[in-house]
């Protein structure tokens, strides 16, 4: 007889999700189900293409920058260097916001973060509460930088085809400089606590270390910005194809399963499923994908972000004679890729003669990581059931395993 176990909801997910486990004696079958609609291209269809810049950021703030790059190409304009620096500065702030938010959510698994410091101290959770406060202070700095550079932190608006909408006032670039100075030691402190305690091999997440997915391919945006190529690696870490955004958008197949709203992306020449994000960016040969590896990669990236902020958030980079090349004509198609904090994002728009969106393709990291997420969920369930864990414990394992993705 088949029995069913539903673990719902899976916390910390961007989109409402649940796990359904079917058991009929032949071993459990685990399904990671996204239950909510995700139909952003349908919302953009029929809009003036420049308006998608403000709509796509509901997927994640970094989509705003992916759209901006695609629209630069659609309108055939090259943004001035200052505008590119401001966009790059915004991306760094978004890296910080994304990674710090994930780490904060991880801490919320240990204790009630809304508790009073005194109560937490009594319960032996004082250090976690303090770390969460430090982390959120750093997040506040990053949000301030994102607001200065993007107009808003959660849904940036400042990028336009050909650059950004306005110059930075002196008080803003001076404040960015201060933020960069303050952010570095804050991140160093957080990194130390996470490395030495929370993510340490014998730390509280030790049991997570064994939850891994099968080795799979990875896709990242080439470091050489001028080239803009999507580099694929296969499951064994060997280099594979290197494609332009257009070719990648054509070559990556998406398919939908009847039991989840989130599609799956695959690239045949990389062995089918592949992953993106901090894990893909830091992938070492032979390393199996896991949440622990992803969290460690995020810590390294936070440190890099702090350094990048110090390089970028200076008057010379944030000011210049122009921040915009105003387009003269509307093109027909534009595609671009960005390496966002959550992973590779690809956008392509096709428009009619008035610049109205008629076709649009977006590859979001959640779609590209969907196979990885399903595999991690399955592994967590198998391990949990085999070791006799309670549903609560299994749910906790799954939630922590999926949090970075």
């Amino acid at each position, binding site marked *: 007889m088949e029995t069913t176990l539903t673990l719902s909801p899976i916390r910390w997910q961007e989109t409402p999700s649940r796990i359904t486990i079917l058991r009929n004696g032949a071993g459990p079958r685990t399904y990671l189900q996204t239950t909510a609609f995700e139909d952003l291209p*349908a919302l953009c269809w*029929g809009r003036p293409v420049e308006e998608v810049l403000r709509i796509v950021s509901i997927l994640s703030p970094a989509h705003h920058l992916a759209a901006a790059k695609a629209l630069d190409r659609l309108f055939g304009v090259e943004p001035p260097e200052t505008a590119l620096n401001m966009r790059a500065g915004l991306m760094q702030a978004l890296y910080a916001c994304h990674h710090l938010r994930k780490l904060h959510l991880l801490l919320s698994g240990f204790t009630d973060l809304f508790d009073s410091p005194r109560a937490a101290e009594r319960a032996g959770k004082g250090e976690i509460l303090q770390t969460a406060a430090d982390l959120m202070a750093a997040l506040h700095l990053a949000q301030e930088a994102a607001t200065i550079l993007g107009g808003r932190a959660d849904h940036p608006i400042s990028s336009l085809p050909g650059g950004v909408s306005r110059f930075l006032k002196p008080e803003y670039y001076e404040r960015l400089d201060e933020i960069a100075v303050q952010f570095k030691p804050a991140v160093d402190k957080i990194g130390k606590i996470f490395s030495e305690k929370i993510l340490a091999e014998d730390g509280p997440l030790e049991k997570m270390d064994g939850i891994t997915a099968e080795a799979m391919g990875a896709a990242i945006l080439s470091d050489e910005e001028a080239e803009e190529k999507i580099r694929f690696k296969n499951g064994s870490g060997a280099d594979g194809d290197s494609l332009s955004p257009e070719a990648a958008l054509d070559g990556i197949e998406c398919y939908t399963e009847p039991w989840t709203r989130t*599609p799956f992306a695959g690239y045949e020449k990389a062995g089918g499923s592949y992953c993106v994000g901090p894990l893909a960016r830091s992938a070492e040969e032979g390393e199996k994908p896991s949440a622990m590896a992803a969290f460690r990669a995020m810590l390294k990236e936070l440190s890099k972000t702090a350094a990048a902020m110090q390089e970028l958030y200076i008057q010379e980079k944030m000011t210049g004679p122009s921040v915009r090349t105003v387009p003269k004509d509307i093109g027909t198609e534009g595609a671009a890729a960005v390496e966002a904090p959550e992973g590779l994002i690809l956008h392509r728009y096709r428009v009619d003669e008035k610049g109205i969106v008629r*076709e649009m393709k977006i590859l979001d990291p959640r779609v590209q990581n969907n196979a990885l997420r399903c595999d991690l969920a399955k592994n967590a369930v198998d391990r949990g059931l085999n070791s006799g864990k309670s549903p609560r414990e299994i749910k906790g394992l799954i939630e922590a395993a999926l949090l970075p993705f």
Partner: protein
Amino acid sequence: MRTKKPFQIAVYGTAGCRACENNIIDLHYQVNSFAGRAEFKFWPYLLGSSFDDIGDDLGKDLREDPGDNIGENERFDLAVFAGSVRNEADAEAARTLREKSDILLACGACAALGGLPGLAHLNPDLKGSSGEGSDLCSGDRDNAQENVQDNAEELDPALALPKKRTRVQALSQVVPVDYTVPGCPPTQNLLWAAISSILFRGEPTGRLSYVVSRLPEAVSCAILAGELPEKGITFAGDKAVCATCSRAKEEKRFSKGKRVYESSETGRCLLEQGLICQGITTREGCGGLCTGVGLPCRGCFGKADAVYDPGAKMVSAISSTFDTDNAATVKAIADSFIDMTGTFYRYGLPTQCALLDQNLTEKGQRNGRSGQNGPSGPSGG
């Protein structure tokens, strides 16, 4: 005034972007601590809380934990609902939270107005639906395997996904809402204003002075008197965004409608430059976030009190300022404005467009409740 037992709060988000929910977390760190004063008892995103008991015998442990699931007798002082209502699970959550909460707060443009997901109604492939199928990776419906999820029951009934509803709806179109905080996402000061004035009413005014200085006078007076503000109010200004926009205003005369990509920053009123800026119809409260960066307002706070239908108001405002008396030129200028429906109702199509029948329920029945202040009003029925 309550001082002992912390206020019990529920937070629920549908398929939004989590920005509203993350903002609530940020309030605790960036504005004022909730510690000892408010307790988050139910929050699927942050706590993994569930409406349902879980599964078969293996679910026993979870059922016995009062912290995760809503017990039969559990009630909340305040429920914060973020996101629009798109499927049956969202609607059921709205009904349950309404039933179990003393006060229900619609948080953010999606819950308050329908939000960006309402644009699905303008897609010819999806008109009349809430956008079935998932094509996050493609705008091409042929490749999207649309409806494939509807066959999930053929695999196993346990895998069935929540049914889509025929329309994208704001929270107030499903259940009565007590208060609203608009915005995409709501600004931190207004969100704090709403939560703190609802929960901490009757407290010394020093604690609430931050709140009252940002709200319309009538609301501020109620809060200072230790009373709940009148039900149905929106925690935002009562005037239009233009009232707080710092851009230089001269004379509004159009010779051509301008697209955002054609504009460059001059510091002058965006509408006067020929850009569609909805500051004249939109409720104030954001402080002109978008116009401050040189970009036109898109109405995420919903319409101002004095406006009946934001689209009609915009058409009226724009057409009265065409800089010509020549009919052919008027037509040419009018033609230069495109996608007016998708622009004027960017965040409020489900609730604020008079041309849509606002009072139809998902079953095609009239619910008999009329909205306030126009088509549906931010907190109308």
